[in-house]
């Protein structure tokens, strides 16, 4: 370093001939004045970023002689290396060698891999191995300058293999791979040339001619630190439109790669865009590309455009939103990072349903959204009344939401698809972590077992913290009750609060075990189990007395809900050939929900005699789905990819609904087989500008004994690099539906039911979607319009009595149809310290059921306007975020009046009329959330690069304490009606501590 600082540069070409350039290092008279010759066959300006071989000539040999005698540079293995010929005249060889580190430092300045790719070849027979060892021991700069030094004396002229091996350039990936985990790089580091900051990234190391043209490259995309396969990453040949996407297991096949010296650009959300420089020596099959998490590259925006997006709307697909849980913590959350909540911040997905983790996509209901977790269908995605999603973000790797017009490979749902891929677990290193918040404890561990097996286990359990209780209280005293009116003659009423004993919890466990017997096969077992037990029972001693003749009245209510999911899948994926990939999956999914909401009333008269009355609702729902399916993907050529598959499902769904513990109102148990197949083809036309994806799906459904055809097609056309036009159309069927049981007084509930093709028809939808997007490196502007028609909707209502001819309660199912239409806008800034998006959706969802009215009425989930703004700001170790959502109020049906009927036995009965279906609206919904995260770092303070070991997060949900209405409950007690507003959460702060150990 001392020498280096003392040097004054003298560089200029003397002459250039056949790639030779002559320079002088240092002033004449300096002990390190060297007139040296540089040879490089490519003669390009990037010469300093190549492997270097420093050649020191024989004693007293001129530089020209050394150059002439050297044959190393002619070897094909060293094609593209830079050779530096250092004369060995004047001064001792030891002096010369001691000057070399400074020279190396100068010549290779800014070359990240110099330590690995600079070699020394000494032809002076007077230098021994011992001399070199001594140099290495005494001069740290010498040791650091050269990866290997070879003496000509040690080389047997007939065998140069040792030399070739010693001078073999090392690719950069191997070096970076040692850096496991996310790193924080201090932006205050003063030295801009500090290699630690500026030179992470792959470096071109091959400069020779290509050996293959227009070839097919296949391989896999993985996370650099954990080895996780990365699904749905984009692989693009730089400067062309040749591109492909990795599949769910991370495999990809790229056709028509122009040369084996082309550059690939790999992009994956949450990761830095990586440039990969192909060389003829790299494999053309099983080529593994490693990506680094974006946070390792905080300061590297100048090198590659690092996308900071948390969620993105994909340009190349219609109506697809993609997200990686890796960056989820940056969004405001309510105690847990939540993928479903995050999707709700995007256009077209309703954000005003705090009580549902299920997604209301484009006027659809959550049951119309297919949720696939590692291939098996999840039927219930809620924890704790829907305030939390059932998915533990620590277990997840990738999530994609198809908002409509989805491909033929997905089926059985009318609206949308959420495809969740769980992590395989770190394949390289055992690591574990924990998240603690005011709501829950979340622990996870990734355990690799040998080279071929990886696993991940996560466990989450709520505990009765303040936040948990707050949510729970939503159902009790926290709500505002008010007397609305009373029928004449009825006794007066009033408000009272009730005491609730909370003994409730939820937990979930996720596990995944992945075995990779060969490079082509992956076998994985995924398990998902979550249970909620919500005990909201009330026990009241004495309430204020009602009426004149009831001296004492006590009341206890049981409100016990238990529900949960168990799902498992065993999947075998195989890359049969570079062009054919397939997987076969066997899965089991079970959802159960048991609800006991009953009241026991004890009335005691003045003589101490008491009468007990029991009444209530008992509701049980149990769904089982056993499936097998096979999916194949055949890359026919550069222009076409064919996907096909077959599936079979056996459904078994039970639902019972009883009142007063004896009167079973509804008892259904349906079983059915559903099986079929699909074929779809992704084809590119007009120099890849037009992508067309037609497909057909057909299904046989046993209950209706019919075959259903679902033709679908989508296309996108890239007008230029920035503008893309998109369109889709398709037919969709759904066989298992969550039917709404209309309950105006205590809030409607849903239950899963299998279509019987008769009273509960198979529902169907047709989607029409068109959109345009404009995308630059920094901005996305996109808009999409949709229209869908829906047939065969089912609702269950006890509001309508049998006709004089009589109808049994079993048949209180009503069928209808509906439509949804809307337009969505998104403006997103993807880059920079301040990024985020603004979205607006104008939507409408209307249904028509003959039983309710002759006209279309607003569907329960109808929301006219939704506006969302999300801002993320990064400042050193701090991540700030803010979001604001506004949604117009949802419709509901309310009791509107009362009347009395005299019965035949002389008694009178009171009845209530309701408004026309969904004709009244709740107030508009709006809410602001804020969060701030502070990164926790390992290592010594002041180091410019430190490992991230977690974060402390503080978030505020509903900052300005807006009272948002969830629904209204009505209670009829002794001829009076009490209206209760069930509100969503008010101002709720939360703290999260997240730690991980690598």
């Amino acid at each position, binding site marked *: 370093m001392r020498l280096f600082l003392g040097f004054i540069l003298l560089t200029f070409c003397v002459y250039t001939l056949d790639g030779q350039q002559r320079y002088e290092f240092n002033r004449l008279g300096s002990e390190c004045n060297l007139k040296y010759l540089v040879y490089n066959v490519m003669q390009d300006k990037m010469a300093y970023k190549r492997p270097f071989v420093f050649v020191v000539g024989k004693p007293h040999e001129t530089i020209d002689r050394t150059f002439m005698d050297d044959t190393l540079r002619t070897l094909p293995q060293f094609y593209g290396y830079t050779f530096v010929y250092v004369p060995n005249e004047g001064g001792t060889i030891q002096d010369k060698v001691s000057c070399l580190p400074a020279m190396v430092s100068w010549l290779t300045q800014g070359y990240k891999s110099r330590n690995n790719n600079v070699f020394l070849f000494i032809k002076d027979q007077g230098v021994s191995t011992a001399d070199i060892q001594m140099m290495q021991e005494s001069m740290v700069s010498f040791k650091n300058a050269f990866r290997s030094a070879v003496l000509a004396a040690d080389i047997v002229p007939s065998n140069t293999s040792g030399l070739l091996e010693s001078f073999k350039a090392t690719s950069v990936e191997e070096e970076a791979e040692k850096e496991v985990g996310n790193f924080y790089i201090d932006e205050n580091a003063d030295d801009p040339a500090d290699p630690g900051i500026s030179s992470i990234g792959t470096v071109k190391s091959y400069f020779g001619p290509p050996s293959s043209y227009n070839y097919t490259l296949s391989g896999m995309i993985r996370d650099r630190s954990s080895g996780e396969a990365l699904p749905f990453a984009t692989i693009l040949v730089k400067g062309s439109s040749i591109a492909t996407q990795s599949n769910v297991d991370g495999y990809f096949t790229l056709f028509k790669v122009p040369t084996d010296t082309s550059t690939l650009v790999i992009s994956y959300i949450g990761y830095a865009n990586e440039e990969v420089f192909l060389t003829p020596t790299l494999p053309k099959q099983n080529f593994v590309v490693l990506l680094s998490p974006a946070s390792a590259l905080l300061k590297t925006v100048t090198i590659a455009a690092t996308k900071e997006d948390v969620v993105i709307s994909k340009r190349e697909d219609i109506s697809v939103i993609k997200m990686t849980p890796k960056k989820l913590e940056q969004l405001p959350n309510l105690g847990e990072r939540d993928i479903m909540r995050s999707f709700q911040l995007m256009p077209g997905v309703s954000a005003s349903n705090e009580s549902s983790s299920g997604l209301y996509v484009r006027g659809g209901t959550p049951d119309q959204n297919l949720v696939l977790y590692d291939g098996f269908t999840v039927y219930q995605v809620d924890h704790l009344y829907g305030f939390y999603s059932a998915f533990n973000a620590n277990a997840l790797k990738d999530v994609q939401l198809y908002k409509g017009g989805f491909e033929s490979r997905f089926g059985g749902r009318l609206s949308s698809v959420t495809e969740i891929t769980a992590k395989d677990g770190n394949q390289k290193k055992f690591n574990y972590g924990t998240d603690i918040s005011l709501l829950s404890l979340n622990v996870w561990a990734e355990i690799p077992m040998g080279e071929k097996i990886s696993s991940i286990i996560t466990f989450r359990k709520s505990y009765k913290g303040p936040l948990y209780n707050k949510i729970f209280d939503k159902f009790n005293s926290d709500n505002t009750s008010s007397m609305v*009116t009373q029928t004449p003659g009825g006794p007066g009423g009033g408000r009272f609060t009730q005491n609730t004993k909370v003994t409730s919890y939820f937990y979930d466990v996720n596990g995944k075990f992945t075995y990779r017997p060969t490079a082509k096969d992956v076998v994985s077992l995924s398990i998902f189990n979550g249970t909620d037990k919500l005990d909201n029972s009330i026990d009241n001693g004495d309430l204020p007395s009602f009426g004149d003749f009831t001296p004492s009245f006590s009341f206890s209510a049981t409100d016990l809900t238990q529900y949960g999911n168990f799902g498992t899948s065993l999947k075998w994926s195989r890359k049969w050939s570079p062009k054919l990939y397939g997987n076969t999956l066997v899965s089991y999914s079970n959802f159960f929900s048991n609800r006991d909401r009953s009241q026991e009333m004890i009335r005691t*008269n003045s003589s101490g005699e008491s009468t007990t009355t029991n009444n209530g609702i008992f509701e049980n729902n149990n769904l089982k789905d056993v499936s097998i399916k096979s999916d194949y993907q055949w890359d026919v050529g550069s222009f076409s990819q064919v996907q096909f598959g077959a599936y079979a499902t056996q459904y078994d769904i039970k639902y019972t609904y009883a009142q007063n513990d004896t009167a079973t109102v509804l008892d259904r148990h349906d079983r059915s087989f559903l099986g079929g197949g699909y074929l779809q083809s992704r084809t590119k036309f007009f120099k890849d500008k037009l992508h067309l994806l037609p497909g057909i799906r057909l299904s046989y459904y046993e209950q209706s004994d019919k075959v259903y055809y679902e033709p679908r097609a989508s296309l996108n056309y890239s007008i230029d690099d920035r503008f893309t036009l998109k369109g889709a159309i398709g037919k969709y069927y759904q066989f298992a539906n969550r039917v709404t049981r209309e309950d105006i007084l205590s809030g409607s509930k849903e239950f899963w039911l299998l279509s019987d093709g008769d009273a509960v028809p198979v529902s169907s939808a047709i989607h029409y979607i068109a959109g345009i997007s404009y995308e630059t490196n920094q901005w996305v502007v996109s808009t999409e319009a949709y229209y869908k028609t829906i047939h065969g909707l089912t609702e269950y209502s006890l509001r309508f009595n049998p006709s004089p*001819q009589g109808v049994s309660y079993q048949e209180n199912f009503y069928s209808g149809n509906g439509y949804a239409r809307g337009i969505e806008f998104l403006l997103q800034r993807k880059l920079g310290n301040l990024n985020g998006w603004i979205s607006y959706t104008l939507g409408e969802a209307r249904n028509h059921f003959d039983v309710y009215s002759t006209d279309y009425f607003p569907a329960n989930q109808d929301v006219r306007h939704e506006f969302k703004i999300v801002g993320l700001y990064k400042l050193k170790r701090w991540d700030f975020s803010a979001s604001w959502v506004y949604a117009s109020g949802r419709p509901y049906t309310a009791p509107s009046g009362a009347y009395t009927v005299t019965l035949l036995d002389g008694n009178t009965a009171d009845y209530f009329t309701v408004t026309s279906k969904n004709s009244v609206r709740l107030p508009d919904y709006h809410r602001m959330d804020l969060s701030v995260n502070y990164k926790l770092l390992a290592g010594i303070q002041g180091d410019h690069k430190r490992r991230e070991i977690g974060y402390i997060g503080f978030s505020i949900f509903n900052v300005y304490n807006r009272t948002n209405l969830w629904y209204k409950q009505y209670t009829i007690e002794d001829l009076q009606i009490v209206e209760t507003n069930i509100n969503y959460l008010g101002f709720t702060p939360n703290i999260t501590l997240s730690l991980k150990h690598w």
Partner: protein
Amino acid sequence: MRALLLLSVLFFYSCNDEGKTEFTDWAIIESYIRPGDYFNIKVTRQLPFSSDVVYSMDDINNLTISVTCNDTVYYLTPLGEGAYIDSSLIVTENTEYYLSFHFNGLAVSAFTYIPAKPNNFSQSATSISLTRIDSTSGFPIGGFTMPDPVELTWDNPENDYYLAIVENVESVLDPIRDFGDNTPPSNIFRKSPTTLAATEIRTQEFQYYGTHRIILYHVLPDYAALYNENTTSSQNLTNPSSSIGNGYGIFTGLNADTLYIEVKEQ
């Protein structure tokens, strides 16, 4: 982006036009149509839950109500208090009645029919004897035996709904038991509607001595459903008769047969 923001703001202002409450002034019908009666109905208004509602201008006592039976249209005469009658139309068995009128700009319609008179209605006893129990008498020495229940039977090959109502017809009620401080029970009690061909009256269901009228109604399913209801469930929102269009209430046909039983003191 500004344009988008502006657009959104405009929408916020334009989207609050939907009312908070809604009340429709529905007609409420109450009518049990029995053979032999003149055709009559009662029309009332519901009581709204909010105070600022607007009733329709239609006069509830002066509606033009028509009833169609056997393709003949009859117009009912108002009697005041919402009651209407047609003194030329006598209700007959197995006839269908279609009601229609306009109220609050809506075409209100209703339909029912008269089921057949109960056939072979019979009882297992015409009189029973029950021991008087009161606080002063104490328990009878040596205990007492309860008489067998009274069995009621009728023909019901179609599994239709039948409802039995038992009414004490004495002008002065003579209680069997001492009711203490409790409110004395009604002189009428009923059995649950059944689709069977029999029901039984347990002797402890009788509260008073004297002559009782047992009326067996052959009712329609819509009326029978009223008794299946749970007063605390949302079925209070059920329209008691789904045959009424654009209105609420009950409009149902029924037919009855009557027997008598004597309850004597033992």
